[in-house]
């Protein structure tokens, strides 16, 4: 059974091989001069103001949570898609109940403002999304 997925591994090897060859080519063919100033982190021409790994807007975590909740529910729809025709109306109403629960959760998140992405007020110490 897993044998039929071997071509995926071949493709992965192809992708990595191609990428490695191209990177190596540019590594050896390109002129490497380097230099302290050249290697410094890019900050639009200014000296580096502060570190880059600082606090981030909470919005991104909210989006990630929303995604986990709804994508897992969407994954349940795939097996249903296979049998939707054979299942007839009873199965249609069954999945309707499932979707109704999903929609109730969606409406709740919407009402709570979980889908809002707004720039935070200035000076709050977080970065804008």
């Amino acid at each position, binding site marked *: 059974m897993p044998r039929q997925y071997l071509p995926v591994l071949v493709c992965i090897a192809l*992708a990595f091989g191609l990428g490695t060859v*191209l990177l190596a080519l*540019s590594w050896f063919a390109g002129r490497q001069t380097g230099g302290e100033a050249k290697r410094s*982190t890019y900050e639009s021409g200014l000296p580096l103001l502060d570190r880059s*790994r600082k606090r981030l807007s909470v919005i991104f975590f909210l989006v990630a949570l929303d*995604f986990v909740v709804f*994508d897992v529910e969407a994954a349940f729809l795939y097996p249903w*898609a296979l049998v939707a025709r054979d299942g007839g109306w009873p199965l249609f109403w069954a999945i309707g109940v499932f979707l109704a629960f999903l929609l109730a959760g969606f409406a709740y998140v919407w009402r709570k403002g979980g889908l809002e992405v707004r720039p935070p007020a200035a000076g709050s110490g977080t970065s804008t999304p």
Partner: protein
Amino acid sequence: MAELLAPLLMIALWAAAVLTAVVIMVWIERRMSALMQDRRGPNRLGPLGLFQAIADAAKFIFKESLTPAGVDRPLYLLAPLLALLPALTTFVVIPFGPEIEVAGERLRMLVIDTDTGVMLFLALASLGVYALVMAGYSSNNKYSLLGSLRASAQMISYELALTLSVVAVLVPASSLNLADVVDYQVGKQWLGLLPGWNVFPQALGFLVFLVAAFAETNRLPFDLPEAESELVAGYHTEDSAMRFALFFMGEYMAMTTLSALGVTLYFGGWTLPGVELPAVAAAIAGWAGDPALFGLALSSWLAPLLGFGVLIGKVGLFLLFFVWVRWTFPRFRYDQLMRLGWKVLLPLALVNLVAVAALTVGGVL
């Protein structure tokens, strides 16, 4: 023998097509944008500037491959390699021709003929997020980090709408295998004159798929991850020479494979309405005297090749549309982008899914 060789030959065919598409698309993008902006575009190298892509490639090779100070080296090295991964793997489940007979066995024209089909495509396509996150995090640069955060939030948001619009196509076909999805669209007509493509009954689902596809490939008007006016170059700010080229290639190849998925789901894939490709192939082979190649008669392997040509032709139209849109619409603001994904596309995809399911159970589709 055939079962080992056939997948390798198909992968070679796909990889060649996808890589060639990148070269041609670079030229088309530059010439078409010039056309739309009333300027000339690259026209010095070769006829119509066709060799510009080769010059670009040479430039990428001979530029300095700089590794900035303060990067997270293992991740920094791995990121551009991962950028190629989704585009060069997802085509394994896309069918490209009528089935042929090799050594007495029926062989369907897709690399992996499996029941998980579309699931495999979506799973492999989702890996693209890792490349962007790793590139942004490892660069140790604010612009890169913000770009990759935006990219990951955007891609997972639109993946939901994409997934739901794809499910709606699978419901009437009752299969996850894309070859079955194509078979479902063959040999029927809508309203007595339109071809049996899914795009007609599922115009709404196609619209959702199309918008989500633009967001998934980070193309304008959804290229927030690399918005020049705010983030310099986004997640690849610190990437030079070939490292940048790999991200660039990954984007164009992802456009190609996602277009191939869209064509297969909504536009009948490799088929042409009213044209029997095996019959056409047999006619051509009969005219040429049916020479054999590698022990296979021309009439048997020409049909899949024709099917591949048809598929690539349709994908080409999709890609032209990508370019057309890019040079027509301005960029979205980030909160507008997220609102469109969650509050418009997701409900629309659900409405489409329920409607399609009702029509399927009711016996219309």
